[in-house]
């Protein structure tokens, strides 16, 4: 939506297409937490401090140009959202409230109370989109492939989810803003439309993906007791405001055994917290449901209520009294650091194809800081929108070519009904990824995952089921699986190749970080399948000067 607004305001005719309903799915609406930006209202700040923290959290792999763009432009994006009345939480003197999140050197993260940051941002962007009637919006439209002619993107083809019709779209520029791939994992905090569609579309159109091995697990996803109607990632804002203690089965606050002790504050970055929790569980010191405990029992009820008001009532309705009991938490797939490789104007290596938001890889390296995802969505969306508008204006003479969509239209037409249970196949893929391509990996597991993927590909087949009228869930699963299997393979291939441990990628068989591996890996789809290529060491010149 951020890209659509920017492209429209730059004079482009914009069509905003979503496989789900417009502005309902995706990751932004799910973000209960915060947005990082050096607006300096809580304490003095400068984008350079945010940039330094982002590079440090990225464990040496950030694309420094993208990280810089993210940090330098985030304050303007926050103020723009403020002008559009998003409702950032404020102090009584009018300054925005900023929370200190792990990995940031000072309070930098703005938010909307209570646990309402993402929905407020989605609603605000949606209102802005609606105020621009020239932005056409079509929901329930599943894009199957981009239309490519002579190596240049000229549109896309897909089908209507609600009635099954095939659709082609001619476009002078295309922006992929489909979010990440976390639905590929059994326990995830994703929307149903986050199976990595955009990565698969870009890959098949000839674009490069970068850093696909780095999947961020959110360390303290809710595990037990079961909650109805509450997001599993809700505990992060609790920790920002109230600290909280992470305890193992012996009641020991274990983070200090792996990282600087938290001492009542929320300090451990996501990669380290995830690793520590999984190691505690593996050592037999986990909670009954297979996680660890998160406790706020030392926090007085009045403070809980002041910080989270109505949320405390929703917890009570679920039978949880934080003053008396700890909850169980464990890591949950949350975000993808990798993605489509772009230049700082969000242009991919395929002419007229752009990416934006989480679909872009590289800005966060091997581990993302809390709060950078929405900043990235707003900033990269705007840049992509402006660049794509310029591209479209420069290419007005380019015509739609029917032959660019022939193959994809034949695929969409389908022929053979699904033999097995499509939903069960999808669940099997999620199990394979969770078991073998989670935060802690090894060669044997990754190789068995590749074997499993081959079996799943064979079960899916290469011919889609024919369209049935009316919200055909099996057909949707088929096309989702086609993308998810390809994207899962890029994650596993990159994870196998990286024989070291770094950030969100921890290899049991290569437990140390190897300075020689301070390099990104790029993946393309060639005639013989996926081809992986190691890039040069990241920012070598700048670092040697700094040292």
């Amino acid at each position, binding site marked *: 939506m951020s890209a659509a607004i920017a492209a429209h305001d730059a004079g482009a005719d914009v069509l905003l297409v979503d496989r789900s309903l417009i502005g309902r*799915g995706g990751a932004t609406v*799910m973000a209960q937490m915060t947005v990082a930006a050096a607006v300096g209202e809580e304490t003095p700040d400068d984008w350079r401090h945010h940039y330094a923290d982002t590079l440090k959290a990225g464990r040496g792999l950030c694309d420094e140009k993208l990280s810089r763009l993210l940090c330098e432009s985030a304050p303007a994006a926050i103020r723009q959202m403020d002008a559009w009345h998003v409702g950032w939480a404020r102090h009584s003197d009018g300054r925005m409230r900023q929370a200190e999140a792990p990995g940031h050197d000072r309070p930098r993260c703005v938010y909307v109370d209570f646990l309402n940051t993402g929905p407020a941002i989605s609603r605000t962007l949606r209102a802005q989109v609606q105020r621009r009637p020239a932005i056409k919006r079509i929901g*329930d439209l599943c894009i199957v492939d981009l239309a490519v002619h002579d190596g240049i993107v000229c549109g896309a083809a897909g089908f209507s989810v609600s009635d099954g019709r095939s659709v082609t779209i001619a476009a002078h520029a295309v922006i992929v803003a489909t979010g990440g791939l976390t639905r590929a994992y059994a326990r995830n905090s994703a929307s149903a439309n986050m199976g990595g569609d955009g990565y698969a579309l870009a890959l098949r159109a000839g674009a490069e993906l970068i850093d696909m091995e780095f999947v961020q697990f959110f360390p303290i996803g809710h595990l037990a007791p079961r*909650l*109805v109607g509450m997001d599993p990632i809700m505990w992060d804002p609790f920790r920002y405001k109230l600290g909280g203690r992470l305890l193992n089965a012996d009641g020991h606050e274990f983070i200090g055994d792996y990282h600087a002790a938290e001492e009542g504050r929320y300090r451990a970055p996501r990669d380290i917290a995830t690793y520590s929790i999984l190691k505690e569980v593996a050592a037999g010191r986990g909670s009954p449901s297979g996680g660890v405990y998160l406790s706020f029992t030392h926090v007085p009820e009045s403070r809980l209520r002041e910080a989270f008001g109505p949320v405390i009532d929703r917890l009570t309705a679920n039978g949880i009294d934080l003053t008396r009991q700890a909850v169980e938490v464990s890591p949950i797939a949350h975000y993808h650091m990798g993605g489509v490789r772009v230049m700082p104007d969000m242009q991919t290596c395929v002419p007229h194809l752009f990416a934006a938001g989480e679909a872009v890889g590289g800005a966060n390296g091997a581990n993302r800081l809390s709060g950078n995802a929405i900043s990235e969505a707003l900033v990269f969306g705007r840049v992509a929108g402006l660049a794509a508008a310029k591209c479209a204006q420069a290419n007005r003479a380019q015509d739609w070519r029917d032959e660019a969509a022939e193959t994809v239209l034949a695929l969409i037409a389908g022929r053979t009904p699904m033999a097995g249970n499509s939903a069960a196949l999808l669940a099997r893929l999620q199990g394979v990824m969770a078991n073998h391509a989670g935060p802690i990996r090894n060669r044997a597991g990754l190789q068995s995952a590749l074997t499993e993927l081959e079996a799943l590909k064979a079960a899916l087949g290469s011919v889609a089921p024919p369209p049935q009228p009316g919200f055909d869930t*099996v057909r949707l699963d088929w096309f989702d699986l086609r993308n998810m299997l390809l994207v899962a393979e890029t994650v596993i291939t990159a994870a196998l190749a990286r024989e070291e441990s770094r950030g969100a990628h921890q290899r049991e068989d290569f437990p140390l970080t190897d300075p020689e591996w301070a390099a990104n890996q790029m993946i393309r789809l060639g005639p013989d399948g996926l081809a992986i290529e190691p890039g040069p060491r990241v920012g070598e010149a700048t670092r040697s000067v700094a040292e």
Partner: protein
Amino acid sequence: MSAIATLVIRRGAPGQEPAWSRFEVAYQPGQSVLDALRRIRIEHDPTLAFRYSCINANACKECMMLVDGKTTYACTARLEPREMRLEPLPNKPHIRDLVTEIAPPDERLP
């Protein structure tokens, strides 16, 4: 003996004779009706159609339906170890099974 939740679900598309499917799922406390629907697709019938996006954050507001005659979100309706009756929203154009057309008119394919 473990408890069972039985979901009786209105099936079919407009113009078809209304049909009902019964599915039994193992009941676990703290599950939502949406959790049960997702399990039914994996364990019994992948053709069962219902809308959802965010699973359990109650952020997307897509899973609204009638549960025992009352309009509610499937993700906030608690699964119970008894017979529960699910129907599509009565005041929206019906598409199939539990899915209705809830997108604003200007966000649909012409």
